[in-house]
C-alpha cells in the first residue's frame, strides 16, 4: 500500500489508466502483460471500482469478500507490474490538453504524462428528484449495495424504487443484512412477459440471474410493484414513509409504506467528464439522454491517444466493462506495433457484440431514461428541491428555463445556482437538463475543472515558481 501512495510530482508511462474498476483493471492488465509501462490511478483507497470494491480488513473479518474474483484480478494486475496509485484523484488536465493532473492522498500534486490515456472512470447513479429526497434515510441503490456488502444494516424497513435490473440485487443485499424490504417499485413493466422480454431468452444465464433474484424476493414476501414510482418521501427529520404512485397515472396511489430506508435510483450514467476535458467529442445518447463520448467499437475516442472504456463509455454492466477494457488494450497494442493475437481480437469483438446485444435487450425491458427522466421531472411539485446543494426548487428552475426568449442549461444554472454547489450537478444534472427540455442553446451541463473539489494546497504545489508571475 505504501508503495502505491508515495508519488513523485511528475510521472511518465506508456499508458495511464484512470479508474481501477473492472474496465480499468482489465485494460491495465492486458497492456502490462504485453510489456507496456502502465500507471493505474484511482481515487478510492483500494483498487476495484464499484463492482470489485475491496472490503477493508474489518469488513473482511466480519462479512468476508463477496467478490473474491475482484481480489484475484487486482493481484494479477499488480503481479503484471502495473504501478497502482490508489487514493489518487485525477482532477483535471493541464493546458497542453494531455497531461493528467492528480492529487495524492496527502494532497501532493502529481502530473502524469502518458502516450495513451485510458479513461475508465465508471458511472454515476442516475437520480431524479422527488419531494423528500433530501431526507436522511433516502439513499441511492448503489450506496445501499455497498453498505450492505460491508455488513452495515442501513435500516429496518425499506422500499427499493426506481428503474433497472440493479434494483433486484440491491433488494436482495438488503434482505441479507436483515432489512425487511417491504416492496420494490419499478417504473417500467419489465417482468411481464412480452415481445421485449422474450428476446432475452437467448441469454438464459443472465435471465436466470435476474430470475433468481426475483425468486429470492418472492420467498421473502417482497412485493414487486411495476409501473410504479416514488411520489413522495414523508418524514420530519428522516424518512418515515413513502407514497408510491402509478408511473402511467400519477394520480393513482399504489401504496403507502412506513419505512426508515428508501433506496431510489434510475440506473447509471457514464462519468465522461475526463474524456470531455481531454477534448474527446461527445454526443447525446438518444435512448438515455446522457452525454457519451464518440467511440470506435474498441473504445478509441476522437482524440486518437485517448480511449474510454467501461461504464464511462455507456452503462452496460461489469462483464461488458471487463471486455471493453481488454478490447481497448488490444487496440492500443496493435497501434503500438505489438501485434496481439488476431484470433483473440476477433473473439473479443464477437464477445463484445453479444454483450451489446444483451445490453440492448435488457435496456428494451425497461423504460428509456431519455423519456422517463423528463416525464418524472415534469410532474415534480413546484416546491421540490431539485438542487440539494444550493436548495433550488423545481419552480425556480422552471422559471429560469422559461425565461422570455429562451434559456439554456448554463443560463439556468447561472440564474438559480442549481448545480453550482458541492456536487457540481452530479446529482441534479439529469433533472436540470430535463426541466429545461428543448429550445435553443446548449442543453447539457458542461464538464468542469476540478473534477472533484481540490485542496488549494495541491494547486500551490503545481505552481512551479510560487510568488512569481506567470
Amino acid at each position, binding site marked *: 500500500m505504501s508503495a502505491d501512495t508515495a508519488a513523485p510530482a511528475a510521472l511518465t508511462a506508456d499508458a495511464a489508466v484512470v479508474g481501477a474498476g473492472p474496465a480499468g483493471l482489465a485494460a491495465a492488465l492486458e497492456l502490462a502483460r504485453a510489456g507496456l509501462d502502465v500507471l493505474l490511478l484511482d481515487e478510492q483507497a483500494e483498487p476495484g471500482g464499484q463492482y470489485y470494491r475491496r472490503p477493508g480488513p474489518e469488513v473482511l473479518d466480519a462479512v468476508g469478500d463477496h467478490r473474491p474474483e475482484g481480489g484475484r484480478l487486482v493481484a494479477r494486475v499488480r503481479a503484471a507490474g502495473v504501478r497502482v496509485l490508489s487514493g489518487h484523484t485525477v482532477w483535471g488536465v493541464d*493546458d497542453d490538453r494531455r497531461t493528467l493532473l492528480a492529487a495524492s492522498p496527502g494532497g501532493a500534486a502529481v502530473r502524469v504524462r502518458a502516450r495513451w490515456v485510458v479513461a475508465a472512470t465508471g458511472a454515476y447513479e442516475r437520480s431524479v428528484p422527488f419531494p423528500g429526497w433530501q431526507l436522511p434515510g433516502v439513499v441511492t441503490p448503489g450506496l445501499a449495495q455497498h453498505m450492505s456488502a460491508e455488513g452495515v444494516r442501513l435500516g429496518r424497513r425499506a422500499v427499493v424504487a426506481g428503474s433497472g435490473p440493479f434494483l433486484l440485487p440491491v433488494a436482495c443485499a438488503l434482505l441479507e443484512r436483515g432489512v425487511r424490504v417491504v416492496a420494490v417499485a419499478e417504473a417500467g413493466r419489465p417482468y411481464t412477459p412480452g415481445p421485449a422480454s422474450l428476446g432475452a431468452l437467448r441469454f438464459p444465464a443472465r435471465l436466470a440471474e435476474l430470475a433468481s433474484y426475483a425468486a429470492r424476493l418472492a420467498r421473502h414476501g417482497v412485493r414487486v410493484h411495476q409501473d410504479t414510482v416514488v411520489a413522495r418521501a414523508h418524514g420530519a427529520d428522516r424518512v418515515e414513509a413513502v407514497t408510491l404512485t402509478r408511473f402511467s397515472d400519477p394520480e393513482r396511489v399504489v401504496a403507502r409504506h412506513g419505512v426508515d430506508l428508501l433506496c431510489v435510483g434510475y440506473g447509471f450514467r457514464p462519468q465522461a467528464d475526463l474524456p470531455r476535458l481531454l477534448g474527446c467529442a461527445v454526443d447525446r445518447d438518444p435512448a438515455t439522454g446522457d452525454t457519451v463520448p464518440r467511440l470506435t467499437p474498441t473504445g478509441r475516442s476522437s482524440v486518437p491517444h485517448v480511449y474510454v472504456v467501461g461504464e464511462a463509455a455507456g452503462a452496460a454492466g461489469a462483464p461488458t466493462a471487463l471486455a471493453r477494457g481488454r478490447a481497448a488494450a488490444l487496440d492500443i497494442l496493435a497501434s503500438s506495433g505489438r501485434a496481439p493475437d488476431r484470433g483473440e481480437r476477433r473473439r473479443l469483438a464477437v464477445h463484445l457484440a453479444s454483450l451489446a446485444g444483451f445490453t440492448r435487450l435488457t435496456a428494451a425491458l425497461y423504460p428509456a431514461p431519455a423519456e422517463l427522466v423528463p416525464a418524472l421531472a415534469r410532474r415534480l411539485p413546484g416546491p421540490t428541491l431539485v438542487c440539494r446543494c444550493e436548495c433550488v426548487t423545481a419552480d425556480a428552475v422552471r422559471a429560469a428555463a422559461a425565461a422570455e426568449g429562451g434559456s439554456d442549461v448554463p443560463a439556468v444554472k447561472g440564474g438559480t445556482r442549481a448545480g453550482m454547489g458541492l456536487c457540481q450537478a452530479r446529482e441534479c444534472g439529469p433533472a436540470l437538463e430535463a426541466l429545461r427540455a428543448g429550445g435553443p442553446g446548449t442543453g447539457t451541463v458542461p464538464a468542469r475543472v*476540478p473534477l472533484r473539489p*481540490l485542496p*488549494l494546497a495541491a494547486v500551490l504545489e503545481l505552481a512551479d515558481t510560487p510568488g512569481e508571475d506567470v
Partner: protein
Amino acid sequence: MNAYDAVIVGAGVLGAATALELAEAGLSVLVLERGAPNREGSGTTAGNLHIQAVHTRRPGQAVPLDSEALLPAQKAADGLWALAEERLDADLEVRRNGGFMVAETAEQRRELRTKHVWERRAGLRTELLDGDAARDALPLLGPTVTAATWCPHDGYANPLKAAPAYLAAARRLGARVEAFTPVTGLERRGPAWRVRTPRGRHDTPVVVNTAGPWISDVSALAGVDMRMSPVAIQMHVTVRERPVLHHLVQHIGEGMSVKQVTAGNLLLGGGWPARRMDLDGRSSAGVAGLTGNVAQAVRILPFLARLRLLRMWAGPLAATPDEMPVIGPVPGREGLYVAGGTYAFTFAPLWGETLARMIRGERPRIDVSAFAPDRLTAPAGDADPAAPAHTEKGTAPC
C-alpha cells in the same frame, strides 16, 4: 417589421442597465441578444465594484491604464450602486464593505502613495496603512504585505443577479428582450437604422452597441472600424466557507482580487488569462492561470491554503488599446452609440444612465468626453493599414 425608439445590441449588464434607463424615460426599447442573456462578460465577471483607484499596470499588460482619470467615474458609480437594489426592487447581494489594496515591494508602496494622492484629489476617502496596521485591520493578511490602502466603498454585487434584475425591471416598463437573436445587419435608412436579425428586422432611430467582446463586430455591421479586442480571463472559486472575509482584497502590483460572496464561496481572480478564448462557445480556464492566481492569493491571504477549489471558469471581455472605457456616440453614424471596455460591471449603472442621457440630449452626470469612441474609430476606408485593428494582449483589467 417593428419600430422601436431604441434597439440595444447585447443583453449583458450594460445593455440591461441602458434598457432600464431608456424604458424609464418612456422610450420603447428592444434588446437583442445572440445567446441567453447575461452569459458572457457580465455572467462570468468577478463582480467587484472597484471604487478605489486601480493599479495601472499588470504583468503582461502592454499599456498602463490612466488610473487617475477613472476616479470620478468610480465615485459616481459607487453612488449609483448604493441605490441599485431599491431602484430595481431586487436583491443583488450588493455589498459595499470596503476593500484593501496591498503592496509588497518598495516600488508597489510608492504606487500606493501616488494613488492615495489621486484619491484625495478626487474626493475619495482612502487610508494608507503600513503592513502592521493593515494586518491589525485585517488579520488574515500574510507577512509579505508591507502596506495597503483601505477604501470603505469597494464592494461586490452578484453578477448572476445584476443584469437579470435590470432586464426584469426594464421589462416591467415595457422593454422587450429577444434572446437567441443575433443582430446580423445594421443599415442606415433615411433617418433610421434598420436592424436585421434572422428572426426579423426592426427600424429605429437609436442603436446602442453593448455587445461586449463583439463590439467591433457589431460596429463593423455599421461600417465602423472600432479598435477593440476581445480577451478572455478566468476566475477560481472555492467551496463554501463560514463568513471569514468581509472585504475585497486586491494587489497593487499584480492582478489579484479575492473576496467572499454571500453564498460563502471565496472568489479568486485578477485578470489571469484564460487557456483559450472561444467566442463561438465557452472560453476555457487553464491551469497556468489557476496556479498563478492561487500562489499569489495564498501569499497575501495564507488562510486560503486550507480551502478547496470547487470550480473555475473563463469569460470574455472587450479591451481597448488604452485600457480605458469607451462610451458615447459613434462619430459619423448618427444615432449609433457604444459603451464597453474596462470595468464595465462597476460602471454599469453609470454607463446606462450616461447613455440614456446622451440619447435624450441631456448632460451626463460626469464628463465622459475622455472616453469618447472617436479615439478608437477610423471611418471605413481610411483606416491606417499599418495599425492592427485588434491588438493582442495577455491580460486585461478586471
